[in-house]
């Protein structure tokens, strides 16, 4: 499989509008007890762009994703998703952060999808039920419409005919594609991926990466934490390198992978090219 086609990336850059970013993170800090996992994270992402987050294990990449998707709380900083503030602006000056009302947080949550490393599909539901549960129960979509959307998404994921299968009957790559479809079924504004291929065999990794590339070509806004360096470079408009809870380097893939002189980054990339 060939991921080195830069065509899609160029197209995206050309058609970018100058509206305010769909995701804004300012000075985000997070600790577990005495351990400062995220020290001062800021980033911006425009609609239709793809951000890859790379860095060594324990650098805080997954924690950052979990903060942005509200699976963890953070102690300081601001996060704005599609114009909605996750914390009340200016509330964290005194050190005591105040989150937005539950209703706003829920709206934000529904506009952000998350694809987990180990899929977390619902094992007792069929593939199609996994896809339709939330649209029907949460958004109130009519059952038939939800099923129609579900079938369309499965087709897009190359999983036609798997509607009635249970997750345990699918390969890891197929399960991950179902979980991508499940997230897409709620029509999120931003889709987050937490190491989507780390639980997969190398031969199954490709089919998932191909799907994510397709989404990028369809101008889905995505934030992807990954250890697949070639993929991180090819799919993204922006790459962010984290180490020990800080953003060490960020910029275009060309800059981060080829031009940056940062020592920690080149040591990290060096390690990867050797393996």
């Amino acid at each position, binding site marked *: 499989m060939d991921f080195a086609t830069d065509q899609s990336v160029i197209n995206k850059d050309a058609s970018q509008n100058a509206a305010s970013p769909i995701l804004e993170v300012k000075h985000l800090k997070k600790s577990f007890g005495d351990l400062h996992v995220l020290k001062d994270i800021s980033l911006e992402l425009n609609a239709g762009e793809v951000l890859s987050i790379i860095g060594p294990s324990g650098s805080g990449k997954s924690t950052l994703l979990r903060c942005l*998707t*509200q*699976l963890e709380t953070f102690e300081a900083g601001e996060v704005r998703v599609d114009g909605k503030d996750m914390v009340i602006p200016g509330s964290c000056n005194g050190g005591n952060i105040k989150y937005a009302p539950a209703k706003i947080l*829920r709206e934000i*949550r*529904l506009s*952000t*999808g*998350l694809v*987990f490393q*180990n899929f*977390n*599909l*619902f*094992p*007792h539901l069929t593939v199609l039920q996994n896809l339709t*549960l*939330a649209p029907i*129960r*949460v*958004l109130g979509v009519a059952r038939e419409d939800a099923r129609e959307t579900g079938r369309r998404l499965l087709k897009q994921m190359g999983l036609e005919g798997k509607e009635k299968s*249970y*997750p*345990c009957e699918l390969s890891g790559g197929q399960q991950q594609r179902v979980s991508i479809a*499940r*997230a897409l079924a*709620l029509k999120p504004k931003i889709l987050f991926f937490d190491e989507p291929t780390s639980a997969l065999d190398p031969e199954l990794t490709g089919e998932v990466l191909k799907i994510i590339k397709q989404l990028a070509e369809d101008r889905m806004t995505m934030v992807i934490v990954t250890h697949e360096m070639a993929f991180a470079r090819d799919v993204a408009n922006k790459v962010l390198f984290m180490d020990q809870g800080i953003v060490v380097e960020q910029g275009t893939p060309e800059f981060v992978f080829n031009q940056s002189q940062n020592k920690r980054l080149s040591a990290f990339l060096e390690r990867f090219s050797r393996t």
Partner: protein
Amino acid sequence: MSELSTLLPILWGGFCTTLAIFALTLLFSIPLGLLVAVLKMSRYRIIRYPVSFYISVMRGTPLLLQIVAIYFGSYYLSEYAGVDFSFDRFPAVIVAFSINYAAYFAEIFRGGIQSIPKGQYEAAYMLGLTRAQTFYRIILPQVVKRVVPASANEVITLVKDTSLAQVIAVTELFALAKKQQAAYASIYPLFVAGVFYYVANLLLSMVFAYVERKLNYYK
């Protein structure tokens, strides 16, 4: 064999009482057990501690004693409090069995609930499901599958435990068989009663095997 034709109708009457204790105990103890399990996992100590105490007493003392305590205890308590209330024999048995079995079921259910991976909750949360939807649509169906084998054990034990009801003179199967033992001057009626228990549990085992197979549609 003429003995058997007079014995069977008598024992059948006792078996119906046994079945009634069995069915009513399940009816009350399973929902109560689920409630107790959820309360035991409460984040508030003021809820958790009393519930733990209740479970430890129910599991730590003989059911026989609990039946006696409910029956006579309620009588003495009401006398002491000056209210006119006490359990009849049969309801006392049902109450004692229900709160006893609820404690055991609660621990089985708690184990089942806690064995569901955290990722299931996180996935449900990201999809916007409410806490109630998450519990009833995602967690509980998976818990049911996991607790069926352990629950089958309890249910089968219950069939045999019903014989404890005779301690407050409820005439269930075993109590009647003992009476007949005296009348016949033979342990033969006890063996016939044993066959009743065995057949009932054989049927139950088959039901549970069927349910387990049915729930095996996913791993």
